[in-house]
């Protein structure tokens, strides 16, 4: 089952790259959509057979690969990674549909896009460190091209920055992985087996640091975050969507899958640091967002702010807080993906993202504007929508562990609300501008990408147990490892 998630998009990428002529754009698009929809269906099938009771890995596939050094082809999924698979499945289809707006070199674009999708599925299913690392890097490379070739005016700078940053991060992470491999003395890269080994605390602390750098860059955690606004601003819309919705989650997923279960003792010493940087992300990200003049940058900084809640939740390590953190990963994926889709819609029409040049869109493009308002309220944590559940659980779960930090973080919610409301006031309200009066409202294709997100954000806001029941056993196992209650 899980292999098909990885190999269907990969096979489709190869088919497009090798066999489809570049002028058959519709064929390319058809193949791409099919190759992202099938995994979505597979994820649905897995969901229908999901065992809600177990903490163990499900749908495991384990084959020997390079036995001499203990590398395996080992896939499996638990509640935490499966929630990420659901997110990946949904967002990869929607971003694929959003990619229909790409108007040059479609063949390369979709081939690279499918490689990117392969990498994402791989990261969330791999249970062997080397396999994990390969997929981790596999995401990086197509991303670089997708930003560098189809991006905005400063795409090369942005792509390079993204590449160097994540490259340095992943190299250091590899150091950490290798250190674990040697230290454990088990001669295996099996991530589950490595959790059983004991590591001396001093070693664990350093190994944790190495892994931290790799994951923190992806999240991104302050002060490693400056690649994100640049990458977002220059990336084409669907790539921004994937970047915000799924790629950032790879970093926090890494903490959950690798750092915390394998090095729980080190995590305990690192926890106050996590809480602190989480708080910085929340408050600092929100304040920087408030002063942004570029709409896409504003959304990018809001992502930084929101990911801070994940870090805070990890630090607190109570069942509520970690559930909230995972919920935030999922919810933020939907909401930020939606925001980037919406920014793309207006950018396609106006060719500007400058907030000062946009006004009166409630009248100019009422449907788009209403959905934009919905997404903004979702992002600022309006109760009844998914973001609230996540922030609520993180804050309630952290309050008894880091009281002062949690109180300040809660105040960060006001800052987030203020920049979204200011943005809505400037862009959506007011008299429409002559310049944009004739703009068409959201097209059916755009609505196809937006409506599912509206429904999902509302669904997961009202019925959170839909997802929480899946992630619950795995979260509890992480909490147990960290010695929480």
């Amino acid at each position, binding site marked *: 089952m899980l292999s098909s998630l990885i190999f269907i998009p990969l096979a489709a990428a190869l088919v497009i790259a090798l066999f489809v002529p570049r002028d058959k754009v519709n064929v390319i698009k058809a193949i791409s959509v099919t190759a992202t929809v099938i995994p979505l269906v597979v994820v649905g099938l897995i969901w229908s057979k999901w065992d809600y009771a177990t903490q163990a890995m499900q749908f495991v596939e384990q084959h020997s690969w390079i036995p001499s050094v203990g590398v395996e082809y080992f896939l499996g999924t638990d509640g935490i990674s499966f929630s990420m698979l659901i997110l990946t499945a949904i967002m990869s289809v929607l971003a694929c549909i959003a990619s229909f707006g790409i108007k040059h070199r479609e063949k*390369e674009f979709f081939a*690279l896009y499918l490689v990117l999708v392969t990498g994402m599925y791989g990261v969330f299913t791999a249970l062997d460190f080397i396999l994990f690392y390969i997929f981790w890097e596999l995401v990086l490379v197509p991303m670089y091209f997708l930003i*560098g*070739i189809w991006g905005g005016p400063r795409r090369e700078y942005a*792509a*390079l*920055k993204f590449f*160097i*940053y994540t*490259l*340095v991060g992943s*190299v*250091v992470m*590899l*150091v950490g992985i*290798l*250190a674990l491999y*040697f230290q454990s003395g088990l001669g295996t890269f099996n991530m589950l087996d490595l959790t059983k080994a004991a590591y001396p605390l*001093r*070693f664990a602390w350093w*190994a944790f640091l190495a892994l931290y750098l790799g994951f923190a860059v992806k999240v991104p955690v302050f*002060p490693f975050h*400056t*690649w994100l606004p640049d990458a977002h601003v220059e990336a084409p819309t669907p790539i921004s969507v994937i970047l915000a919705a799924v790629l950032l989650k790879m970093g926090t997923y890494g903490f959950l899958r690798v750092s915390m279960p394998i090095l729980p003792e080190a995590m305990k010493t690192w926890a106050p640091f996590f809480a602190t940087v989480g708080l910085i992300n929340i408050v600092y990200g929100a*304040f*920087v967002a*408030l*002063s*942004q003049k570029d709409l896409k940058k504003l959304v990018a900084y809001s992502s930084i702010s929101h990911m801070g809640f994940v870090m805070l939740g990890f630090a607190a390590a109570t*069942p*509520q807080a970690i559930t909230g953190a995972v919920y935030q990963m999922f919810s933020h994926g939907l909401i930020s993906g939606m925001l980037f889709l919406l920014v793309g819609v207006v950018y396609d029409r106006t060719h500007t993202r400058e907030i000062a040049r946009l006004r009166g869109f*409630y*009248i100019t493009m009422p449907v788009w504007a209403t959905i934009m308002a919905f997404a903004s309220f979702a992002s600022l944590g*309006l*109760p*009844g929508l998914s973001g*609230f559940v996540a922030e*609520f*659980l993180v*804050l*309630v779960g952290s*309050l008894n562990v880091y009281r002062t930090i*949690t*109180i300040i973080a*809660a105040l960060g*919610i*006001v800052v987030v*609300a*203020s920049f979204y*409301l200011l943005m809505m*006031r400037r862009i*959506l*309200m*007011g008299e*429409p501008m002559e310049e944009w009066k004739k703009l068409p409202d959201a097209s059916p294709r755009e609505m196809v990408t937006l409506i599912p997100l509206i429904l999902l954000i509302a669904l997961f806001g009202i019925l959170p*147990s839909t997802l*929480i029941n899946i992630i*619950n056993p795995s*979260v*509890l196992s992480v909490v147990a490892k960290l010695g929480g209650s």
Partner: protein
Amino acid sequence: MREYAWLIAFIPFVSWLLIAFFGHRFKHGGDKIGIVALTISLVLATMVLVETANVAMQGEALGAHGPALAAAAAQAPEMKGESPDIGPTFDRSITWIKIGSIDITTGFQVDPLTAVMLFMVSLVSLMVHVFSQGYMHGDVRYTRFYATLSLFTAAMLTLLLADNYILFVISWEVMGLCSYLLIGHWFEKPGPMMASMKAFITTRIGDVGMLLGIFLTYWATGSFAFKDIAAATAAGKVAGPMLTAMAVLIFMGAVGKSAQFPLHVWLPDAMEGPTPVSALIHAATMVAAGVYLVARSYPIFHLTGEALAVVAYIGGFTALFAASIATLAQDIKKVLAYSTISQLGYMVMALGVGGYTAGVFHLLTHAFFKSLLFLGSGSVIHALHTQDMHEMGGLSKKMKVTTWTFIIGTLALAGVFPFAGFWSKDEILLAAFNSPFKLLFWVGILVAFMTAYYMTRAVTLTFFGKPRDHHKFEHAHESPSNMTVPLIILAVFATFSGLVNSPLTGNWFAKFVHFGAEHGETSLLVTGLATAAALLGILVGYAIYGWNVIDRKKAIRAAGPLYTALKNKWYIDEIYDATVVRAYMAFSAFTAWFDQHVIDLVVNVVGWAGYQMGLACGDFDLEVVDGAVNGVGAGVMAGGSRIRRVQTGYLQAYALALFGAVILGIIVYQVIGG
């Protein structure tokens, strides 16, 4: 019937969906859907109220739930552990979130407090729905208006039905959203644009405090459900500073929502919204939700004297402070807005001094007469197209129904016998009189005087004297029946609703809605002082504005700085703008600058250095890597030569780095691990 109480909130919710998505297909934009829905809700709410009342009265007769037992409990400290009786409570809940053994439930409950509130909200909302047909006639966003009105009502009713803080907070915020959308109904104009944003952000500051208070309560009591929390606090599980912190933080939510000082600044600005919205949301229901919050959280509050003192003094100060501004406001809606803030302060003060029944009672009567006054002002604005009282005058000749209902509302608000406000205001003053907060009793008397004064002023300026703007007066006319009928219905309630807690009905209300046993003996002194204050206020108001006994220009000059300060609303907005808002925006600008010019600079310098190194390393000929790169590149990158060149350099550096990582890993292992 009570098991179906959730329908009262659910029907307006369905109405919202219908109007929002299909309203434009209907002839009148879907307004009838909302009216029908609210009518059903009102019928259901009435049935629920009657049933709850019956159950309560039976219970009292049997002595099972009645105040008598609770009084005994209060008198006997050894029986501590029972939460004070709030009357028969019907509760249904289900699991909402389950994390391991942690079970977070949600559900609805009906107790006397909920039952009376449900009735009031659905009645006022229905009146506003009907009134808006006339007032909003021909509006560009008529359908959107009705849709949001329905959603608001659904949220408010859900809030009342919630049996736990989570559902409470959800509906609380959805109300805030609707308030935001309706204040900004005419969003192309700068006023509503600014006001809607200000309202949302200001109330959110209070909301954060409330959320933290709720979270603290959760950790202290292990639950979000009201009944569990009541049981836990009554059992003495929480005490001391923790209890006070919980109560004060929760109270912050009420300070924001009910526009108490210092977060009151959004409510006057919220008058930018359509007047029916002001009547429903910003007078009768949503702003009163803060008072309801305190009443609902009384199992926490009543155990902490410190928190009650905070509540009492904030309420009392707000009542006085807002009344002072209302005495000089020139815009008829602003008079009513400051009056609302002042009256909300009154209710908050009542709860603070221990007058649970008094606070809730005033909340109900106030909802009727204040929505009446707002709708009445709407009728005037509809006729004159101005809100400035200096352009009004003499309207009693042309708008009989509006004038008389407005006067009824004024008498009720001023607290003149036998109108509704008389009874509820008396209860509050009595509670203050019997409490240790003697100062607040006198504040209450002073506010009663000021209230009567500024309302008389408003009535006189608007309806009596000579028309000051003849052009506008010429075109004035009485409003259509869909506007006047709601006025008449509300006037009936403004007149008679106070009687439910009068000797005439044997103080029925106090027996129905109570928190434990409240022993308030009626005091003729209190009643006499309150009535005297009200009559004096009316007299002074009419003397100045009706008989013109003093030269107002001279009086203004004599008042000097006091007049200027009052006219400028004590400069609170200016002070906030100059301090908090400015510092906030400056800090944001600084962080943005810091991010771009400090952090990113470091990144770029490091990146540049790395790039140079990468190029240098590129001279290292790594055949294998280069070949692999070109192999991939040939398929993918044809045409992107520049990119490819850079990329090739990078992949070489990358391979080197990988190689280095392996070496480093081994070294780390040797040094640290070994």
